[in-house]
């Protein structure tokens, strides 16, 4: 029974129209970006049609080669994959130890994790973080960005801990009795059972690493070769050429948006299931 089943006409139609309207507004910028990326610059500046007059697939090859998006994409992929793998390893290990064992300093370790999620001094942290990377010589590579991203694993840690709690203790206790050690139990009992949790958490880490803008932009200020998609694209706006190449900008935007959009559509269920753990905006 639904609440309005007695009067399906008026209210329901109104609700439907409203939902469609909101959906149109949400889709508008994405649609404009995708369609615009196939138009010529003149067409974009002159206004006019909704659909491109002639589909300019060349925009993509030009962005890919001319505006260096091949390199940006590789950098983005590297940062995102490395950060995701690293975060999952570090967070799952810590969550395993905290959930299954007692050890000195355990409460402190958990408290430290929790506190980093609540204290925020914003952009200030970037400076000491950058200095630390300079000190160990990682400021000229993307590994510095990766390391800082992995360090922000508190959210993943708590998410994995809650998944871990749902795995029956009997399973790993049995393995321990059968003689498999701490590490082997983790690797061959816990990790396989944690797969769904790792998948969802990995999706989230990958998304935020792929979308990260401020951190890579700080690290690549003097080293444009390391720019990720988000940074390279934003820098197109301040390009030296007098006329802004809107067509290339939109093609670049699509190159950086489409992979995530595809992953989202494919993994929609998992994305939508565990959002409560990560409030973005």
């Amino acid at each position: 029974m639904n609440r309005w089943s007695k009067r399906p006409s008026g209210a329901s139609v109104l609700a439907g129209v409203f939902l469609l309207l909101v959906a149109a507004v949400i889709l508008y910028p994405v649609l404009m970006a995708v369609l615009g990326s196939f138009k010529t610059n003149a067409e974009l500046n002159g206004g006019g049609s909704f659909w491109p007059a002639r589909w300019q697939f060349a925009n993509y090859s030009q962005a890919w080669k001319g505006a260096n998006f091949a390199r940006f994409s590789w950098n983005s992929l590297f940062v995102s994959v490395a950060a995701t793998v690293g975060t999952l390893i570090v967070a799952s290990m810590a969550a395993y130890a905290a959930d299954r064992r007692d050890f000195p300093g355990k409460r402190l370790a958990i408290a430290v994790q929790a506190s980093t999620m609540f204290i925020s001094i914003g952009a200030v942290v970037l400076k000491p973080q950058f200095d630390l990377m300079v000190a160990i010589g990682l400021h000229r590579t993307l590994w510095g960005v990766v390391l800082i991203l992995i360090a922000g694993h508190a959210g993943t840690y708590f998410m994995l801990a809650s998944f871990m709690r749902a795995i029956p203790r009997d399973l790993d206790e049995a393995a321990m009795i059968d003689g498999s050690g701490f590490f082997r139990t983790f690797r061959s009992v816990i990790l396989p059972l944690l797969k769904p949790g790792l998948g969802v958490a990995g999706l989230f880490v990958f998304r935020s690493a792929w979308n990260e803008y401020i951190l890579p932009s700080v690290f690549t200020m003097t080293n444009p070769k390391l720019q990720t998609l988000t940074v390279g694209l934003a820098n197109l706006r301040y390009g030296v050429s007098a006329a802004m190449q809107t067509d290339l900008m939109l093609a670049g935007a699509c190159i950086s948006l489409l992979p995530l959009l595809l992953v989202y559509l494919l993994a929609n269920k998992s994305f939508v299931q565990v959002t409560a753990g990560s409030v973005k905006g």
Partner: protein
Amino acid sequence: MHRTRIKLEAVAFTLPSLLLTLVLGIYPIFWAIRYMFYEYAGYGTPKFVGLYNFERLYRDERFWNAVTNTLVYAGGKLLVTLPLSLLLAVLLNRRMRGAGLFKTIFFMPTVLSASVMSIVFYVIFNSYNGMLNQLLQQIGLSRGVEWLGANYAMLTMILIAIWGAVGNYMLLFLAGLQGIPRDIYESASIDGARPAQQFFYITIPMLGPVLQMVMLLAITVSLKGYESIMVLTQGGPFGKTDVMFLYVYKMFFSVASTTAEVQQYGYGSAVGFAAALLIGAVTLIYFYASKKLNSLY
């Protein structure tokens, strides 16, 4: 013997996580606390100035402008986002065809990069030949609005923030709504309660705890955000969209195309700390107010 070994192994498993958090998460906070009392431009020796940075903060019009802007930005965003996302959640919580598709569409902005979407929004909103102005002209509604000009830039930033956030809160609200048993609505409608009455007398009170939690998160997240503003306007024009943490950012790293300012690590730390305190204060006020609201029910 065996037991100690396992304890050691558990500690070893925690170490990478703990070390990274301490070094890259906690240390920067203490770094900032130390430099609040120094004047330091990044070279030479830092000069101890005591509480001078806070005196300066008190007189700093740009900081207070940024505080006002932050409150307007967060307030404007939440004032629309929260009711709208709640409304969407309530509408989609009914059994209806296409609910899944709508959810997918509404949540999509949350997945997309804020900075990349800001570039797309620049193409849409820019005053000279933006897509939106072209559209408005074509249907004869307006001759062009300066969306990123001094009068409208903040409004545009708020609109973009709403676009990016609505789907996220809708989903959180939906999760909360699913916890309310449907029988309550059924018996209420048998008793003759209309949808609006059901919303105010059942949905809102039953959703209370979720609503409070989500609002708390929403407030802190919105006060902290500056990424899309940084990409789109860098705080301009004339500081109209300068928000607290963007102001802090500019103290540490000058932004391309704006005039490079002298870096001020000490003062920047003080501003960052003040901003964090302000966010803490707003959170506390909210906490107190929502407790008060609780006793009203």
